[in-house]
């Protein structure tokens, strides 16, 4: 009896310790949890405070020139700046450069540096630093261009301490977008111990693999009044379920990649904001594989697609339907292609075309999808069913990202795949890959007309002229049904109610410099 009492007592003590653990925890946690309770008292920006932003994956490099993952660039945007940088409208604004001129023939760029731009280490940005950075990315330093568009740079000359002249081999009005490449202190790219040092609104504090990256306010930032926050912690959240829990529990304040159902769940306690992303999602068709080499078959697939219901199912109706490879947010270059195929399914037309092509009984189609993108996987499931109704028997092949890159993207050994291409600011970025000789032409699109138009676009000296050709390219791609373009998925962001000032960009960045707390911390 006594023994039993003792063991019961022991258990009781253990339970107590467990519960007392609860007590201490809940006090320490309360700081992050007031979001839902307090009302917004004012919209006046206040300075100070720290914010935790959930990010999906670990960063791939701390070197702004070597980072390739979109998920890394969106963070480094806060630390580094180029001569120019993107603004929220998809235009270029001057950053380290105060002004620039381009020669008539488009071969010489002259940049005047802004006064008083400081690196995070306290040094002034000099013409030397700019020259070094441009030579590094263009491959003049060691022969390997780190940003391929800039490999056209022939020389970088310092005219005086505030002026840098860049000479390029080929005139290309789009090249100006590439001068967003980060300016870093001269020599830091070869210094083994170098910490990331830029001129951005936040300076680098620390990076811990698997945990995240911490940045703090750049007190001497050149843009007056920015940033508001003292500290931003980009915290790696493991999977979207964990992100949801972390948001609810209050351990992250901003999470930019919600799924539609999560947005529904959070909309009462968080600000949920939608904006078009800069991703073009499509059912990419391998134009070299039978039967997809027949334009009628590809068109049939376009007819069979019901983009409206894809949008409803996976994007909660917030996606932007597209027919070709251009972001509608790049207004000057986008053309709303004539809607031959329609956004809802036209099964009769699809079956007719299939019969014409000799596939009256349909055919088997394997759709490969990278399994780490839940969004594309869900889309594939919906699309598979739609194609099934047109008599196309779909099998879904879900593969790891690494395998997808190897087999589909680089090996081009697939029939169809659903994925997204992330665009950058350069308007032609999405179009250059469908030129038949392009190494990025993973759908093996082959159209003499497209190639000719693309070449003509390359000879233009102004962006306005280029825009006309680019619109033509979009039409060709659409008419030839190079692939079945679906939508620009929405970017769905949850943000703590106390915060405001979040800006959307047509490029993939998380700009924290304009975010502020509306109530006093």
């Amino acid at each position: 009896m006594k023994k039993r009492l003792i063991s019961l007592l022991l258990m009781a003590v253990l339970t107590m310790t467990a519960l007392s653990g609860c007590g201490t925890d809940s006090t320490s946690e309360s700081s992050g949890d007031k979001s839902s309770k307090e009302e917004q008292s004012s919209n006046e920006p206040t300075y100070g405070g720290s914010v935790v932003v959930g990010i999906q994956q670990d960063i791939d490099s701390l070197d702004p020139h070597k980072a390739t993952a979109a998920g890394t660039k969106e963070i480094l945007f806060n630390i580094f700046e180029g001569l120019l940088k993107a603004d929220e409208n998809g235009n270029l604004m001057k950053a380290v450069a105060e002004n620039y001129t381009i020669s008539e023939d488009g071969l010489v760029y002259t940049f005047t540096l802004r006064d008083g731009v400081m690196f995070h280490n306290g040094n002034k940005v000099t013409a030397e630093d700019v020259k070094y950075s441009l030579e590094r990315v263009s491959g003049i330093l060691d022969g390997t261009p780190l940003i391929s568009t800039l490999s056209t740079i022939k020389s970088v000359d310092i005219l005086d301490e505030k002026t840098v002249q860049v000479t390029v081999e080929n005139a290309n009005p789009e090249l100006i977008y590439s001068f967003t490449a980060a300016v870093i202190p001269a020599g830091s790219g070869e210094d083994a111990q170098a910490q990331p040092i830029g001129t951005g609104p936040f300076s680098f504090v620390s990076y811990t693999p698997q945990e995240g990256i911490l940045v703090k306010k750049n007190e001497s930032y050149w843009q007056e009044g920015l940033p508001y926050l003292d500290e931003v912690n980009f915290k790696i959240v493991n999977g979207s379920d964990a992100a949801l829990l972390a948001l609810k529990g209050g351990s992250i304040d901003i999470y930019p990649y919600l799924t539609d159902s999560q947005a529904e769940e959070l909309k009462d306690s968080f600000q949920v904001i939608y904006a078009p992303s800069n991703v073009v999602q499509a059912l990419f068709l391998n134009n070299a594989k039978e039967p997809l080499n027949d334009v009628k078959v590809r068109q049939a697939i376009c007819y069979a697609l019901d983009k409206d219901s894809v949008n409803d199912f996976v994007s909660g109706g917030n996606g932007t339907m597209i027919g070709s490879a251009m972001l509608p947010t790049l207004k000057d270059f986008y053309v709303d292609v004539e809607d031959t195929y329609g956004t809802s399914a036209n099964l009769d037309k699809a079956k007719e075309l299939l019969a014409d092509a000799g596939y009256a009984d349909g055919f088997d189609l394997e759709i490969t999808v990278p399994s780490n993108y839940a969004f594309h996987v869900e889309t594939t499931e919906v699309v598979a069913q739609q194609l099934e109704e047109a008599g196309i028997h779909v099998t879904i092949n879900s593969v790891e990202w690494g395998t997808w890159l190897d087999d589909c993207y680089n090996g081009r050994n697939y029939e169809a795949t659903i994925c997204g291409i992330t665009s950058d600011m350069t308007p032609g970025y999405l179009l250059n890959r469908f030129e038949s000789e392009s190494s990025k032409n993973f759908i093996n699109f082959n159209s003499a007309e497209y190639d000719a138009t693309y070449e003509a676009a390359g000879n233009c000296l102004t962006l306005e002229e280029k825009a006309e050709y680019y619109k033509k390219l979009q039409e060709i791609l659409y008419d030839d049904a190079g692939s079945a373009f679906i939508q620009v998925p929405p970017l769905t962001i949850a943000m703590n109610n106390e915060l405001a000032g979040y800006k959307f960009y047509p490029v993939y960045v998380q700009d924290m410099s304009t975010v502020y707390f509306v109530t006093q911390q």
Partner: protein
Amino acid sequence: MKYIGKKVITLIMTLFLVSVAAFIAFQVIPGDVVTSILGTEATPEREAQLREELGLDRPAPERYLNWVSGVLSGDLGVSYRYSKSMNEMMPVAELIADKLPVTLYLAAYSLILIIVISIPLGVFWARCKNPAPNVLLNILSQGAMAVPSFFLGILITYLFGIVFHCFTPGGYVSYRDDLSGFFGYLLFPAISIAIPKIAMTARFLRNSMLLELSSDYVRTARSKGCTNRRVMYRHVLRNAFMPVITFLGMIIAETIAGSIVIEQVFGLPGVGRLLISSISTRDFPVVEILVLYITAVVIVVYCLVDILYRMIDPRISDK
């Protein structure tokens, strides 16, 4: 002594075989590290440069030998994926040293919970003649054993994190910043690991004790006038403990090697999570060392269990 010598040789042989197997596996699985780092932006020049930087332009056997000689001389290599500074990659040793404490603390935490709760519980259960608590314990333990640990983790996160606000899900604090906050956060992951194991260990101990209770020596002990208590603790428990030790050994090996699932669920940056992410990013140097670590842990713990066996039960060493 001879026994330990033999074990050490087995350990080395196994580590060698496992490292070869992991290396071969990495040659065979699809997905190339260079393309996966550069993604869709790869240019042939960048690819070639990176391949050379990582030493991947050399033939496979040479790469393996380089790696082995590095490990033997104490250089565990550098990660392909994790940066230390702008131009330097994170050395594997440093990376793992940073993550290991999380796993080890979690293992220690949950082991203490398991041992402190399951043993008294098992004894109590074995001695329990009353049908009511017996049935209750039976149901509870069956339930606890049947729940997969990831589900239990999610359940606990939901219940204690979202409903009762005992902790902040995903609010992991690094042990480097705040040790008490760190232990506070580890409590619930530790409980999630411990619950199924407690149920198993307690049930195991109870069954083992019941089996021993029906042995002849118990009757003999009783008839020579031993008190019930003495029979229980001096005779039965000692004998009943043998299989439990093996079982605990397995649990120890399992938790020290990294509670992969629980680390995922609670967002703990331990070695288990490092292993998963390194496999998916094809970070070979990290995976190889982690695989060796896990193998070594399992072998060493089993070996210790063997030795402990001999200490508790002298009969074994005779054989």
